[in-house]
């Protein structure tokens, strides 16, 4: 497979990289991704990413949990093997609430997390592209895919340097 050329701007500070994103984008250069050792608030907005809507899978899985729990408790206790315990109804709504609550939380948490793992391609054995091993330590790296950037290599390097990058490296992957 043909290798791809990435231009990497290495920054020392989170505020620097956050400001650099706007500077680079204003010059019409498309950014592949920005990597950081911790979450930088506002970076996704600066990069023009849509809001992460992880609440949607959480809600959908949660509501599935609620429905399954109601189905399980009502069907088993009220239909399949009706049991009267302590004079309660076959399907006493209040006593099913703890089960319904727990299953809602369980499915919402696991469902959302697996969706997250799937979206991010996170699984044991995954072979990630690591542009610079210092990303998970103390450096902030802006990666620009030369083919998709819409600018020349020279212009990108100049733009990165002008935006405050302490190093500009080239990596072929």
């Amino acid at each position, binding site marked *: 497979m043909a290798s791809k050329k990435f231009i990497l701007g290495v920054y020392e500070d989170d505020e620097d990289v956050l400001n650099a994103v706007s500077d680079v984008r204003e010059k019409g250069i498309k950014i592949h991704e920005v990597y950081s*050792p911790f979450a930088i608030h506002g970076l996704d907005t600066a990069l023009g990413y849509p809001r992460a809507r992880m609440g949607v899978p959480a809600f959908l899985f949660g509501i599935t949990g609620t429905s399954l729990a109601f189905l399980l408790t009502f069907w088993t206790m009220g239909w399949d093997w009706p049991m009267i315990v302590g004079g309660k109804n076959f399907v006493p709504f209040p006593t099913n609430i703890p*089960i319904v609550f727990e299953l809602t939380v369980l499915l919402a948490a696991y469902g959302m997390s697996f969706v997250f793992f799937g979206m991010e391609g996170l699984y044991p054995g995954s072979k990630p592209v690591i542009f610079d091993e210092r990303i998970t330590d103390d450096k902030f790296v802006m990666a620009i895919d030369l083919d998709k950037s819409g600018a020349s290599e020279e212009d990108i390097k100049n733009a990165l340097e002008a935006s405050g990058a302490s190093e500009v490296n080239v990596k072929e992957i």
Partner: protein
Amino acid sequence: MQVVSPIREHLVTGGKTLHDITEDISRHVEGNPTKEWKMVFGISLAVLAYGGYWAYQTWFHGLGNWGLNKTVGWAWDITNFVWWVGIGHAGTLISAILLLFRQKWRTSINRAAEAMTIFAVLCAGTFIFFHMGRPWLAYWALPLPNTFGSLWINFNSPLVWDVFAISTYLSVSLLFWYIGLVPDLATIRDRATGLRKTIYGALAMGWTGGARSWARYEDVSLILAGLSTPLVLSVHTIVSMDFATSVIPGWHTTIFPPYFVAGAIFSGFAMVQNLMLIVRVVYKLEDYITIEHISLMNKIITVTGSIVGVAYITEFFIAAYSGVQYESYAFVNRATGPLWWSYMAMMTCNVLSPQIFWFKKMRESIVVSFVIAVVVNIGMWFERFVIIVTSLHRDYLPSSWTYFTPRMGDIGDYLFTFGFFFVCFLLFAKFLPVINMAEVKAVLKSSSEKKSNK
């Protein structure tokens, strides 16, 4: 522009940089175990082995080696179960509730507290299995179609609610903990070589630290926190319902859910305090687990200790005010009956001892914090003992009144869980970063000494 509150002390001292954080925390994962670690691990293994002998006796020869009798049918087992579940609560509280409240001071302690939660809940679960008598049939507690036809578990039973609550709590805590670990595992992966790189690489699951990943990660963390917050409250509420839904005087009270939750947070924080003070000294992490952290935890211990104090008094008042002679007697008997010493231990350890933290000097003293945290944990064990045993030993029939004396089986099984807990915690502290590097790095600017020295 970051705004730094002038009333807050620094959360990271020693003028650390981002790289220093990586070095300071990763060092313990990458280096050989220290002499202190080996010593404590050896002791923990010995306790686990000794307790393991008694656990074996209980599992395979039955509950006859416990001091239970026909009147006191629950004693140390359920006391230990509720105590361990309570210990587990601080982890989720620190992780979830303090995250929702944007409390930055949680970042240094949340990782270890979450690990503590998982090990404590496993210890609690052990007592459920012990108490079953036939632990190999534990899966009967799950709603599985079984060999007896379609006979299902009884969803009206608080003990089934417990099964759902504890297992959900354990699974969700494990997930929360693991997701929190992923970025830090990637840090360790990127510093490692050889087999270690493969292992940590597999655990890090290909995390790269991209902006899109971080945005989703933050969203997932926040939603998990939102889900875990009612979960943590529900778990101890449901545990309290084991008692509250019964008709035993001393148990059948509506105050139990909030009172149990407050007690759980109280004892959980005390255990976090103990563990973090040990980790702080052994791993020399004084710059991350600062006096400010210790002081803040002590404030929570004082608040929750006072809440349980109010609950004790309220219970007493309501028992007298209810006009029910059995209820009134149960409470008078708690304080003045044959087990008065346990009631006094509970009141002294839980209500009186934390009040010392009203003094700043005491709140910021390492030795005092450690001692009081141990005292609180002892007190909270007694609280559960008082609720369970003093309520049972004097039942409706004076002819069956009795006393409870623990036997070696009770003590041995408790020791087993202690050994298990500390072995797990020490393995965690050796092989995984005890402090959440990514989160500490994120708050470094706004809360470190370096910022104000600029």
